[in-house]
């Protein structure tokens, strides 16, 4: 029940935030009388942007939840698993080669390579050890980051554009991206939905989980790659927007939604709202038409809020082995 009420409330908030985000922006419009330019801006800039923000928010939150299930570690997210950084490495390579239009493709390739390495290193006969995976992930992540640093070094005068691209943002949003990510997200979600109950069961130790009828290792592999794919696409479209995937699920858990069938959808919805709001703020907070990187805001706002929750609830913190 609480689940349904929460989802309902979040849906209403989502709609309200969505409308707010479409109506408000760097360019003021008279919505009773839209000029051609206004319409242009709405269709080609603002609408895809708001939609993409929502989708990326939901996708990153979903991937964060999934990584935490796979790794059994509270610090697991797209960064610690190497997904973000290796995708970003691909993207930066594209920027460096002046192939800006291929950023998403490069990001995807980078992400897939990085995660295949993580998976190969941490699996023995198809069995995945969360601890090894965690370590392999952080190594791949750091390795990819160092390659990015190296590229910044080499980049000379495009260093600034690499940096700002990496900080993340939805400026480049297009309806085509919205279409792709919607499709991927829906497929991913449907694939995960089937496993809600299994996700709960892999919170037990491996023996118990397997003896309960969950084929733990193939499941880990599956959700690992789904989460990785989502991350790679998000990075390709919007740069590295860290922290969302890590923190949103923890917040939702602090509100006592701990069962996958509650945690997953609520995290996604909450993530979408959070991201749209942050992007809105990023668009309007500065003067002179400047935009802030959305990654900065997500970290700062999300961080402050989470710290507050942690303090308020520090006595009732859940176990995470």
């Amino acid at each position, binding site marked *: 029940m609480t689940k349904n009420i929460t989802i309902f409330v979040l849906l209403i908030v989502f709609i309200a935030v969505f409308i707010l985000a479409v109506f408000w*922006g*760097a*360019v003021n419009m008279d919505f009773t009388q839209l000029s051609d*330019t206004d319409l*242009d*801006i709405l269709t*080609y*800039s*603002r609408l895809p942007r708001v939609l993409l923000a929502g989708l990326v928010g939901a996708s990153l939150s979903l991937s964060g939840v999934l990584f935490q299930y796979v790794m059994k570690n509270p610090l697991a997210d797209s960064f610690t698993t190497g997904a973000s950084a290796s995708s970003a490495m691909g993207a930066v390579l594209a*920027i460096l080669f*002046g192939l*800006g*239009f291929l950023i998403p493709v490069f990001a995807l390739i980078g992400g897939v390579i990085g995660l295949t390495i993580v998976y190969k290193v941490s699996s023995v006969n198809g069995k995945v050890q969360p601890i090894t995976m965690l370590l392999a992930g952080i190594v791949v992540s750091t390795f990819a980051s160092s390659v990015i640093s190296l590229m910044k*070094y080499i*980049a*000379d*005068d*495009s260093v*600034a*554009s690499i940096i*700002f691209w990496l900080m993340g*943002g939805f*400026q*480049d949003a297009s309806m085509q991206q919205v279409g792709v990510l919607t499709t991927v997200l829906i497929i991913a979600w449907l694939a995960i939905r089937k496993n809600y109950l299994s996700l709960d069961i892999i919170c037990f130790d491996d023996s118990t989980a397997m003896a309960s009828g969950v084929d733990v290792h193939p499941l880990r592999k599956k959700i690992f790659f789904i989460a990785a794919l989502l991350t790679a696409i998000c990075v390709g479209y919007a740069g590295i927007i860290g922290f969302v995937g890590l923190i949103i699920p923890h917040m939702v858990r602090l509100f006592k939604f701990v069962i996958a069938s509650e945690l997953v959808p609520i995290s996604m919805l909450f993530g979408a709202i959070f991201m749209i709001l942050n992007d809105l703020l990023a*668009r309007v907070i500065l*003067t*002179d*038409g*400047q*935009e802030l*990187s959305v990654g900065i805001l997500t970290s700062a706002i999300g961080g402050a809020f989470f710290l507050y929750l942690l303090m308020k609830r520090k006595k009732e913190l859940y176990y995470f082995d």
Partner: protein
Amino acid sequence: QAYERIVILYAPVSEIVKQLVGEKVVVGVTRTDLVFKKVYKVGSHLRPNLELIKAIRPDLIIAGSKRAYPEKMESRFSADFFRYDPTSIEDIFKQIRQLGDLLQVQPKSEQIITQLKNKLKQVQPLPDQPKVVYEISERPLRVAGKPSIMTAIIEYAGGLNMIDTNKKHVVISTEIVVDINPDFYIYQDGPMNKNPRPPIERSYFKPLRSKIILVDQYLFSRPGLNVIDAIVKLNQIFKEQL
């Protein structure tokens, strides 16, 4: 006129555009642009605001290098694009000429170029070619390499940039600088090198015997019209101190 709504995303070119066509046709510039004060600000030069640019419907956008402003941006606007990205004095003349053609004010551009060339005549020959190192930032120690506008300035002023790499700037070993022992060690002050320590106060430069010159970053590292002034000024300094 050829273009009526110009947006300039790369501030060093602003002065040139202003001299070519005046202020009226420029409708948008970046935040840090001090040449055009009363037009739309379309964000910072590194992250222009696409929505705003769209809203002011430019017919020409002048941007910097392809690396800083990816080509992808061009396809998002129906406007024409001009890239201003000189690395030498000749480049500057060439691009002023191109801009003149594009904006259909050829006589004006030729006039500017002539003016500049006249100013360059103030440069006097030096008895020796001084060895120079140009510090872009102190932390980490980054110096200007060959393809940079600073090298162009130094060489026009009669000096020789001792850092022989084909990158605009490089992080360099402190040892190398001490070993080169240049005649002039130029370091700049400005946003890229805020409040740098004088080289003499840095422990690794204790043994450095060079003459130290402090210059203004805006004058030396922007590839705009200021470059000519920088050349003249540096030449004077060389002359006085040699």
